């Protein structure tokens, strides 16, 4: 009920109060990334894109609820890992390759590092986490790395 209230208040003209007829209403990305919980997050566009069905960033109410369920405290670790992998996979090829890592690093540090440093860090990351040696991180590598970081469950969490 709370989530529906938040969804509604973003675009009161478009979102109906009554969902029994299952209307097909989608909110564009621009509205959603202006939510106070997401506004300052460097990954806000990727988060919204990963949960949108059409891949372009518009969320229906179900997608909206999905997003906040996965980012809530109660979601299991595997589910969070799946979506975190999607968020960091910028070119959506189901692998986190070096280019994805470079983009992640740029977003995390606000482009304050030189190109050399970025390359160095990305190479180190791939060296550490790539288990099957294909030069990029598959989902299994990513999940393995997540299991070593116990804080992941509490940091990959947005309160609403």
């Amino acid at each position: 009920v709370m989530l529906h209230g938040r969804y509604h208040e973003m675009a009161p003209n478009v979102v109906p109060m009554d969902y029994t007829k299952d209307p097909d209403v989608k909110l564009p990305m621009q509205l959603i990334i202006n939510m106070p919980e997401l506004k300052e997050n460097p990954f806000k566009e990727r988060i919204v894109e990963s949960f949108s069905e059409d891949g372009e960033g518009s969320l229906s109410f179900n997608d909206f609820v999905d997003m906040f369920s996965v980012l809530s405290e109660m979601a299991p670790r595997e589910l969070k890992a799946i979506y975190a992998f999607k968020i960091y996979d910028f070119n959506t090829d189901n692998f986190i390759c070096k280019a994805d890592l470079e983009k992640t690093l740029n977003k995390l540090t606000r482009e304050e590092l030189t190109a050399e440093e970025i390359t160095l860090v990305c190479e180190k990351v791939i060296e550490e986490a790539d288990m099957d040696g294909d030069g990029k991180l598959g989902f299994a590598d990513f999940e393995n790395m997540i299991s070593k970081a116990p804080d992941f469950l509490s940091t990959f969490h947005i309160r609403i």
Partner: protein
Amino acid sequence: MSKRERIKAIQKMPETMKRKREIRNSLSEYFYRLSFWHKTLKIIGGEFGTSVLSYFIFLKWLLNFNIFSFLINFGFITIPQFVTAEPNNLSFTGLELLTGAGYFQQTVLYYGFYTNATIRKVKNGASYNMQLAYIFTVGIYFVICLLILLFSMAKSFSRNFINPQTYSGNASKLLCTWDFNITNEKAVKLKQKNLSTQIKVENTGDSRRCKGTESACWSHSAKACALISFWHSDSSMIVRFPINLSLPGFGSWHTVPKHSGLLDLHHFSLPDVHAFVFSFHPLKCWETLIGQDIYRLVLVDFIFCLLGSFFGEFLRRIIGTTVCLSLGVPEFDIGRSVLDLIYAQTLTWIGILFSPLLPGIQMMSFFIVFYVKKVSLMRNCQPPRKAWRAAQMTTFFMFLLFFPSLSGVLSVIAVTVWRLKPSEGCGPFRGLPSIYAAISEWVKILENYVDSKWVAWIYNNLITSELFFFILSVVILVITYLYWQIIKGRRTMAKLLREQIINGAKDKMFLLEKLRMLQRIENPFTPRRQDQQVSPVAQIPLFQSCVHYSCVGFF
């Protein structure tokens, strides 16, 4: 996005959706409970991140223990006492709030006031045995606390310490440590700046070390010594004074500065309580006197906590921004604050037997501390710069709450209940040889009733029999040993499987190289680009059969 992944995710979704619907359908009570401090915690998490938030969540968790204790003590012990209360002849002056003595001595605050009679409101009606009520309420509360703490600790440990490898590796720093909770623009910018600085520093091969918080040791020991020497003129206390001063010396060799002050705290607080108990023993109504002392300790601890917040954060900020600009704005000292909380909770637990309403007082103090710390945090502190492993540190703090704190309290209470003679003139156990004798006498009475013979049987043959506990211990030891062996086997298995993956990857690279070489030999005149496009498709069946043979060879 692959369809399979989405379907898998959607299949897992209905569980969370169903749960959300259940919550929606249940009473608004649930929402009320959820929103108890929910907004405040959200704001704190948004501005300062998960690490500082973990302190406030720990505080809220400890508060729950106190609320529970206060409710059951009030319900089962205090309310019946009100029925047979004696009038209070002493006058009330404001000083009692500080000393806990005087007027309060004849109130339900202390053990001494409670009656040892069996309370009967209506003649020949239902009776309420105060002795049993007192000992069972306190006993069952501690058992429940112990179980809750054990389960929380085990769950937390299994979640956070299973793979304690390379936390500070680059991979996890890049992909796992971004705190999605932070919603404040300045905090986000600060965190990004910190991360980039960290990466730059690591690249140049430097390593910074955390500075020790030996000042924390000194302040804690000094505080407690001041308390103890101030309130007592007993000679045994003065002997303890130099011991307490030397304890910080032990603190300095700790390599992890965050909990350097801790062992000092527990080192002196428990032996001191033992000393309290034994030094007071021959006095009249010693339990009430101990209760008063603990009340004073709780009060002084609360005052010191507020003062610490005032000096540590408020004045430090003023000094840092006006007089001595190099110091800067302070950071919130999570370790020290959590140790303060654990100390306060230990005092409360010790005091429950002697002053049943003490958890209520501690409850109020925690409430006030929460708001004071929150305001001080918002006004005076900046978000933490260094990485704080919130999940692992929370597990460690829970362990500290269990091991020196709760187990120490349980041993003190066990000694008091089993060995010490309750005072003759006051309290619900007056006249008995020990507090525990109330239970043994009750069981003897039960033996005379046919219906309750089974209770007496359980008591005589299970609880007081050594053979039963011996057999139980042997069984538990055997099970523990079996689990240990299973864990060792699984660890070896995990290592072997990891090596297998790495070997498999090496095989794959080797075979791909070979295939490329073979294809180049076969088609020397076709252009490079075409060759690379064709090879992945042709490679797959060939590659699969090669990998299969190599795996067979591996085994």
